[in-house]
Each structure stands twice: as structure tokens, then as C-alpha cells.
């Protein structure tokens, strides 16, 4: 049984010093290959902590933070980082989560109502389109807002403002990520009950990883710019729009 010792002592390929940082799908593949076991553990942790459903927004924020750390190529202490993020951001996450869900639900309900009404009178198509796109925009903003809260400690109004800016500036990666997450869940539903292992092991953490990836670069730039503006101080009051995106 010396294969284990031989495996440990066998020389590895070496890590190049100046390899360029990967982005996009290559980064996703890299993180999955490196940290797949931790993603499984993260998913189990997610399911465990989300059992009392009220904790769901805080758990999602904590999960986002852990995946952001993975994407930033930093060493992750799973339990410690998860628990700290969960505890530190619990109330803000819950408030933000409820607000976001309320807005999306309102938009969705309005869209559905207008759709029903449009069956009778075609003129209602216009408000339907408005409501539907507003809902989609709200979802994208929600993703930005959750990630921004996970990455920083700004007050909630600032986070909402930055999230709106982000959603306006770069909505498309988020749409792609949402489509991928939706596909995961569709797969789960299609192959139920054989695919019962999917939510248990994969769906939540891997889905969050995809969402965080789509938002991460824009979010860090937003935060850095906002910090720079705040530090420049005087004429950068809360209402001044960020000039360069």
C-alpha cells in the first residue's frame, strides 16, 4: 500500500510565478477543479443552515462570501468564514433579502396580471412588457446587491445605489448566470427523484459560485471606485453619480 506515500512524495508540476490571472469560464473551471470538495461541503452547510427558512438570506450572503473568497484565490477556512459572515451580516441580509423579494414579487405579480389582462385587450401588452423587464432588472439588481453586501460593509442604501449602477452597467453576465442556475434546477426537476443528490450536493453552492463569478469583477470595481470617491471626500456626496464606469 505504498501508493499513498509515493503519491504524496511524487514531484508536482510546479506553480509558475507569473501566470496571468484567469477570468470567466476558465476561472470557473479552475475554482471547481481546485475546490470541488469544499463546494460540496459548502452546499451541505447551506442546506443545514437554511433549514429554519428565516435564515435563508443570511445563508445566501455567507455562501456568496465564501465563493467570492474562492474566486479571489484566497485560502478559505470554510466553517470559520461561513459562520463569521453569517453572524456579522445576519440582520442586514434579512432586511435586504425581504426587500428584494418583495420588489421582485410585486413586479412578477404585476407582469402576470397584465399578461392575463392582455389576453382580453391587446393594449395591455405594453404594461406587461414594462412590468416584465422591470422584474428582470430587479432580479439582476438583487444579485448585485447580495454580492455587494457579502463583499463589503457599506450601509444598505449605498449598497442599493451601487447595485443599481452595476445592473445598469453590466446586466448581461448576470442574465447568463441566472440562465445557468435555472438550468441546474430544471435538470433537478426533470430527473427527480434520481437527481435528489443535486440540491444536496451541488445546486446551491455551485449556483452561487456562478452568480458570484458573473458579478464579482464589476462589484469589486464599483466598491473600489466608491471608496475612492468617498476618500476624495468633499464633493463626492451621496448623490453624485459615479462618472467613469
Amino acid at each position, binding site marked *: *500500500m505504498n501508493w*499513498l*506515500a509515493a*503519491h504524496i512524495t511524487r514531484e*508536482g508540476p510546479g506553480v509558475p510565478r507569473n501566470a496571468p490571472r484567469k477570468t470567466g469560464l476558465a476561472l470557473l473551471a479552475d475554482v471547481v477543479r481546485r475546490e*470541488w*470538495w469544499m463546494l460540496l461541503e459548502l452546499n451541505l452547510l447551506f442546506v443545514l443552515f437554511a433549514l429554519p427558512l428565516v435564515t435563508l438570506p443570511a445563508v445566501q450572503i455567507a455562501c456568496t462570501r465564501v465563493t467570492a473568497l474562492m474566486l479571489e484565490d484566497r485560502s478559505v477556512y470554510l466553517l470559520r468564514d461561513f459562520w463569521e459572515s453569517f453572524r456579522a451580516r445576519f440582520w442586514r441580509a434579512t432586511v435586504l433579502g425581504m426587500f428584494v423579494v418583495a420588489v421582485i414579487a410585486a413586479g412578477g405579480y404585476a407582469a402576470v396580471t397584465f399578461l392575463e389582462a392582455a389576453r382580453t385587450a391587446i393594449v395591455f401588452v405594453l404594461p406587461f412588457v414594462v412590468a416584465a423587464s422591470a422584474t428582470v432588472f430587479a432580479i439582476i439588481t438583487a444579485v448585485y446587491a447580495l454580492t455587494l453586501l457579502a463583499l463589503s460593509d457599506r450601509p444598505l442604501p449605498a449598497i442599493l445605489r451601487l447595485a443599481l449602477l452595476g445592473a445598469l452597467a453590466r446586466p448581461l453576465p448576470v442574465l447568463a448566470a441566472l440562465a445557468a442556475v435555472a438550468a441546474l434546477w430544471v435538470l433537478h426537476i426533470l430527473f427527480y427523484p434520481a437527481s435528489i443528490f443535486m440540491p444536496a450536493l451541488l445546486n446551491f453552492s455551485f449556483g452561487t459560485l456562478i452568480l458570484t463569478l458573473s458579478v464579482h469583477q464589476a462589484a469589486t470595481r464599483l466598491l473600489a471606485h466608491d471608496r475612492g470617491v468617498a476618500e476624495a471626500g468633499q464633493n463626492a456626496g451621496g448623490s453624485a453619480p459615479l462618472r467613469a464606469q
Partner: protein
Amino acid sequence: MTVLAAAGARVGTRRRVKIGHVLVVVTAIVIGLVMLAPFAWMLSASLKLNKDVFTFPIQWIPTQPRWQNYVDIWTKIPLALFIWNTAKITIAVTVLQLLTSSLAAYAFAKLRFPFRDTLFLGYIATIAMPWQVYMVPQFLLMRELGLHNTQWSLIVLQAFTAFGVFLMRQFYQSIPDELCEAARIDGMNEYQIWWRIMLPLSKPALSTLTIFTFVTTWNDFLGPLIYLTKTELKTIQIGLRMFISQYSAEYGLIMAASVVALIPVLVVFLALQRFFVEGIASTGLKG
């Protein structure tokens, strides 16, 4: 298909090797089918009426599958309760065996104390004795302790296993000693070394032991038969006998319940088998 074509013709060395290869594969498939046949029969019997189960020649696909069987099994006997009992016992025993085996194996493999090897050989020698030899004295002991009609008896008796210690010790011996030495110099006591260094590195061995223990305990018939007499404590394997009444045996229902009982074992095996293979090439060792 060139291989089949050449099977009857004169063959060169290269093609002879291919024929041997084909023969091996065909034999393996045939043996595999023979092994799977009882399960296939069980599956088809679970969808038949009682009178059709033993018809010969075997009707592999029943003309009118009786899905009602799968509904009846939950109502005629408290199958859900039995599954819960079995799961309780199996999970408790598996966890305890993993814990005790890995701790003991760490001591036998990495620590030095007097009579270490003698003790180990003596412990391993107990594997040679079949359980049926000492099950009666064990029962008397459990009765003295007052545990004889509870599930605790099964859990306590099966919490330790010589085979598990042997398996884990062989694996731990292949972990280089320098890791333990570096850990000692870093200031860890032996429990910390076991928890932080040994356990994470031994995932393949833990998976193997889990598979063995889970399957053995889930399918255990004789133990629950002896120790559990109250109906609400019984496990699946004993509970299936309740389908056999004085005048008739409802084989269709027995087969259906057996199929249901088989699923967790299959799930555990398939899940851990994947980790077993990937545990070797995974973050644990290669990164």
C-alpha cells in the same frame, strides 16, 4: 468487426490477442448478467400477483404490472417504521465503527507502546471466529445488562470491529511517518494529529469501511432476530417476515419491500464508490 471476421480465419499474433480480449469481455458480461439475474427476477416479481410469482418459464416482464404492490407494502406492515429503525441502527453503528476503528488503527500504526504488535495480532485473530460461536454468551450478557430487547444492544455490540481496525491500520501505515512527526513538532497532541491529519488523508479507507459496515448492518438478519422482539423496534429484514402468515406468503409484497430496502444500500455504495475513486486523485492528495 474485423475481429469477428478474423475469428474463423487464420490469425496472426496481433489478432490472437484481440480474440482473447474479446473472450474475456464476453465472459465478464455473461457472469455479470448471471449475477444480476436474481435482482431482475426480484424486480419483475415485485410487480406480479402472488400466484404469478413462481410461474415457470419465468415471465420477465409481467403483462399487467401490479404497481399496487408498492402501495400495499406501506400499509400492511409498518414499513416506514422499520426503515427508520434500520436506518437508525445502521447509521449509529457505521459512525461508531469508523470512529473506533480509525482511533485504534492510529494507535496501532503510528504510536509505540509495549506489546503493540502482540495485541494487534490477538485482536485480528478474533476475525477467525464466526459470530455464531459466541452469540449465545453475548445474548446472556446483554440480558444481564438489561439491554436485550432494545436497539442499544445491537449498536453496542457492533460498535467495534477487528476487520475495520485491520483495514484502517494498513492504510495508515502507508501514510509517511514524517507527517506525524512534523505535526508533533508543530505542537499537536495525538488527538489533534488524528483529527486534522490522519482522518482527512484516509478518505478512501473510510469510504471502503463505510460501504462494508453499512451494507453488513443494513442486511443483518440474525442480530435483530435475536435481540428485537417488540414489533416497534424491528428492522426491515425481520419485518419482511411479517408478510409470511400462517396460511400464505405474499411473495409479491415481499419482493416489493425488498426492492425498497435495497435502494439505500445502492445509493450509499454508488455515492461512496465515486468518492473512493476520486478521493485518491482529489484535493486530498494531489490538489
